[in-house]
C-alpha cells in the first residue's frame, strides 16, 4: 500500500493524520502518491474519511500530522485559494445569485483575466460540457444533470492541473449517472487532468478509475487498478466491500505448495489460495466470487474443488440468473450464471454439484 518516495509523484500524502476532536483519528497514517494525469478514486463506506482527505488536499482542513505535497512542494501552509485546485462539490455549490456564465467567469475574474479572454474561456468550457446555450440561465433553472455539467465546467474553466470531486453524481438517477461517469472520465483523460474522485459507489469506482483506493476506518485498505481490486482483494474488507462474495469461515490446517488447506467450521476441507493467512491454526475467511462457481462440473479442469449443494431459490434478473444454494450448512451461497440460450435454469430443491478452481477461492484474514 505504501508507495512513498516516488519522485515523480504529482500529489503525495505523507504520513498524514487527521483528528477533529483530539480524541479519535479520522485519518490514520495516510500515505498515497499519484502520478500526473491519473484518475484516482477514493472508495469507502460513509464516515471512512474520504471527504476529510479531499478537504485536506483542497486546504479546507489542516492535517493534524504529516505532509501533503503538490508537485513536490508542501502545501500545508498554502491557503485554499492559492492552491489552484479545481473542485466539484456533491451539491454542486453553484452560486444561486449568478447566472451560469457568471458562475464560470468567477474564477477567471478573481484571477484578473481580461474580459474578452474570459468570455472566450467561459464559452469554450460550456461547449465542452455541451451546455453552450445555457450561459444566461440561473442554476435553479437547470436540471440536476445540467447543474452537474456546469459544476464540472466551472471546476475546469481556469485550467487547474488537479481536480477534486466529492461524490459529484450522488444526486443523479442511474441512467444520467452512467452517462456522466463516462463523460467525466473522457474529459479528464482528454484534458490530461489529475483527478481525485470520491464515491461510495463501487461500480462507479471500478468503471471510472485508473486506480481505486479503498478506505475503511481512516485507512487505505488496498490501492490498486479496478481489475486487480476485484479479482485479488487483499483482505476480507475489500473482498466484501467490492462486488458480491460468498464467504465461509474456517481454520487453516496447513499451507503447502502455495495452497492452504482449510478446515471449514462445518467440517469440510477445501483448498484455497492463501492471501493474508500465514500459518496453520489461523482463522480465515474463504471468499469465492459467485460468477466463478460452476455447477456443470465437467466444464472445470481437473483439480477443481467440488461440493454438494441444494438449490434454495432461483432469481431471474434479466441479464443474469442468481441462484441461492444450501452449501456446507449455510443457505446464503450465491451463484451467478449468464442468461445464455443454452443456460439451464435450476429448480428449487434440485440436488447439484458445484465446483471452482482453487485460485478463485481466496483465504483471507478473518474479520
Amino acid at each position: 500500500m505504501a508507495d512513498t518516495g516516488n519522485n515523480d509523484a504529482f500529489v503525495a500524502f505523507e504520513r498524514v493524520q487527521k483528528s477533529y476532536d483530539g480524541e479519535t483519528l479520522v485519518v490514520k497514517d495516510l500515505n498515497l502518491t499519484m502520478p500526473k494525469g491519473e484518475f484516482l478514486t477514493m472508495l469507502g463506506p460513509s464516515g471512512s474519511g474520504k471527504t476529510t482527505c479531499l478537504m485536506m488536499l483542497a486546504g479546507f482542513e489542516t492535517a493534524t500530522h504529516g505532509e501533503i505535497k503538490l508537485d513536490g512542494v508542501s502545501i500545508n501552509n498554502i491557503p485554499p485559494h492559492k492552491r489552484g485546485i479545481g473542485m466539484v462539490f456533491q451539491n454542486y455549490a453553484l452560486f444561486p445569485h449568478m447566472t451560469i456564465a457568471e458562475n464560470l467567469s468567477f474564477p477567471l475574474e478573481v484571477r484578473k483575466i481580461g474580459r474578452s479572454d474570459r468570455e472566450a474561456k467561459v464559452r469554450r468550457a460550456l461547449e465542452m460540457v455541451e451546455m453552450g446555450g445555457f450561459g444566461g440561465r440561473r442554476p435553479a433553472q437547470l436540471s440536476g444533470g445540467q447543474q452537474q455539467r456546469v459544476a464540472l465546467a466551472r471546476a475546469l474553466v481556469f485550467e487547474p492541473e488537479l481536480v477534486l470531486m466529492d461524490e459529484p453524481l450522488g444526486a443523479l438517477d442511474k441512467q444520467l449517472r452512467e452517462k456522466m461517469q463516462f463523460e467525466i472520465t473522457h474529459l479528464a483523460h482528454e484534458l490530461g487532468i489529475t483527478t481525485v474522485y470520491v464515491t461510495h459507489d463501487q461500480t462507479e469506482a471500478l468503471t471510472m478509475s485508473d486506480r481505486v483506493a479503498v478506505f475503511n476506518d481512516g485507512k487505505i485498505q488496498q490501492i490498486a487498478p479496478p481489475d486487480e481490486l476485484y479479482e485479488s482483494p487483499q483482505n476480507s474488507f475489500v473482498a466484501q466491500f467490492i462486488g458480491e462474495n460468498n464467504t465461509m469461515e474456517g481454520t487453516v490446517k496447513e499451507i503447502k505448495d502455495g495452497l492452504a488447506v482449510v478446515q471449514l467450521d462445518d467440517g469440510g476441507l477445501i483448498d484455497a489460495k492463501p492471501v493474508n493467512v500465514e500459518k496453520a491454526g489461523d482463522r480465515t475467511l474463504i471468499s469465492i466470487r459467485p460468477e466463478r462457481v460452476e455447477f456443470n462440473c465437467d466444464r472445470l479442469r481437473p483439480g477443481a474443488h467440488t461440493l454438494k449443494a441444494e438449490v434454495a431459490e432461483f432469481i431471474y434478473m434479466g441479464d443474469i440468473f442468481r441462484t441461492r444454494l444450501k452449501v456446507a450448512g449455510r443457505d446464503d451461497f450465491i451463484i451467478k450464471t449468464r442468461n445464455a440460450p443454452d443456460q439451464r435454469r435450476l429448480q428449487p430443491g434440485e440436488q447439484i454439484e458445484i465446483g471452482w478452481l482453487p485460485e478463485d477461492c481466496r483465504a483471507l484474514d478473518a474479520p
Partner: protein
Amino acid sequence: MSDTTQTGPVLAADGTPLKRSLRRALRAQKMRALALIAPLLIFVLVAFIAPIADMLFRSVENQIVGNTLPMTVEELRDWDGTEVPDEQVFRALFFDLFLAAEAKEHTKLGSRLNYEQSGISSLFRTSGRDVGDIGEVFQDALTEIDPAFDEARFWYDMMSGGAEAEGNERLLSNQIGRLEVLEATNFSGDVDFVPGAAISDILPNTARAYAVFAAFTHFVDEDVVAEEEPWEAVYAALAIDLEDPATRAALAGYDGPGADVLRRAADAPLPPVDMKAAFIDSNKDWQRVGFWKVIKTYSPPYTTGYFLNAVDMEKTAEGIALRSADQRIYGILFQRTMFMSLMITFSCILLGYPVAWIMANLPARKANLLMILVLLPFWTSLLVRTSAWKVMLQQQGVINDTLVWLGLVANESRLVMINNQFGTIVAMTHILLPFMILPMYSVMQTIPPSYLRAAKSLGATNWTAFWRVYFPQSVPGIGAGSILVFILAIGYYITPEIVGGTTGTFISNRIAYHISTSLNWGLAAALGSILLAVVLILYWAYDKIVGIDNVKLGG
C-alpha cells in the same frame, strides 16, 4: 387513450360531472379548514382590521358640526363669507345652540372647532350659557301680555291643537330624529304629544321649537310634556312667528285652543327679535368673519382638515395653504421619525450581521446558547431596558463616569447622551436588535458552507468569497430584518418618550399626545393614517426594488 371520441365533460364513476363531484369533495374539506381558522379570523377582523378601519374613518369624519348645528349649517350654505352673516343665520344658531346647550353638547363642538381656530371654544361656552337669557326677554314679555303663557298645560293644549285636531306627525319625527343624531342614540316610544297640523302651519317656528322641547322632555328628561313649562326658546320662536304679518292674518281665522290669547299677543307690542345683536352682545367674537368661516368650512360631514393639519397645512379663504413657519411641527416630526428609524435600522444591520453570522456558523449547541443571549432582552421589561439606558447614558451615568475617570472627558464637559436623538437611537437599536438578528440568522443558516468553500477553491480570497458569494445570498435576511426593524421603529412610542427628550421624540409621541391629552382624535387618526401610508409605500417600493420574494424570515 380510449376516450378520445368523448367530447363532453369528464364524468365520475356515478355519472356526475367530475368537476362537480371534485368540488363537492373539496367543499367539506374547505368548510372544516374554515371552521378551524374561524376563531383567529374573527379575532384578526375585530382586533386588527376594525381598529384600522375606525382610525381611517376618524381621520376624515367631521359630523359634529352638522349634527350639533343643523339649521345653522343649512342657513350658512348660501353665505358668501365676506361679512358677518345676517339675522336668519343667527336665529338658526339660537335654536341650534339652545338645544345643544340643553343636551350639553355645545362644549364638545367648541373643543372640536377650537382645534381649527383657538378661541371658538369659549365662544360656544359663553353663548351656550347666555341663550336662556336671550329667550327669557320674550318669555317675560309674553307672560306680561297674558299669564296663561306661564302655564304648561296651556302651551300643551295650544300646540297640540286640541284633542280632536289633526296632528303633524312629520314635524315631530323630524325633531326626534334631530335629537337622536345629537344624542347619538335611538329613541322609541310615544312622546305623548303631537303638534297640531293647523297650528304648526300658522306658527311654524313655535311648533318646531315646542316639538323638540317635547321630545327632549319625554326622552331625555323623562318628564311629562303637559306638565313642563316650555323652554325660553319656544317663547322666542313665538315672538318670531308673531312678527310676521301673515301670522296675524292666519290667526284671525283660527279657533283652536289658545287662539284668543295668541291674537291678543299678536296685537300687543313685543320686543323686536334681533338675535344677531343679542349674540354679539353675549360675545363679540360672533362678529368675527373668520370664526364663521371656520364653522362653514367644517360643516360638511367629512373633512380633509385633519390631514391638512397633519401635513402642516390649513384651509383658508384663499384655499389650502401652508401654515406659518412657527406652527409647522409635523413635517419636521415625520422627517425626524424617518431619519432616526433609518439610523436605527442601519445600526441594527451593522451590529446584527456579525452576530447572526457567528450564530449561523457555530455548532448547534453554542449557537443555541448565543440565541438565548440574543433573546434574553425579550425576557426583561421594555421599560426596565429603556430605563437602564438612562442610567448608562445620563450625565452622571456609568459611561460618563468611566470616561471622566479615564480622563477622556473633562468633568465639567460631560457628554450629553440622553434626552436627545443619540439616546433614542442607542436605546432603540438595543431593543430592536433581536428583530434584525433573527431573520438574518434564519437566512444565513440556509446558506451551505460549501458555497464559501467553492468560491475559495475557485481562487477567491476570504473577502472576495464573502462579498461576492456569501453576502448577496444573505441580503434577503437583511431585507426582512430591515423591514421589520424599520416598521417597528417608525411607530415606536415608549422608548422615545422616556429617553427622547424634546429633540428625540417620534411622531408616535405626538399621536399619543393627541389621543390622551389634547383629545384631538381626528388629528391623531390622520397622523396614524399617514404613518400607515408611509409604511405601505415603503413596503411597495421595497417590493419594486428588491422584490418581496427575496425577503425571507426563515428557510
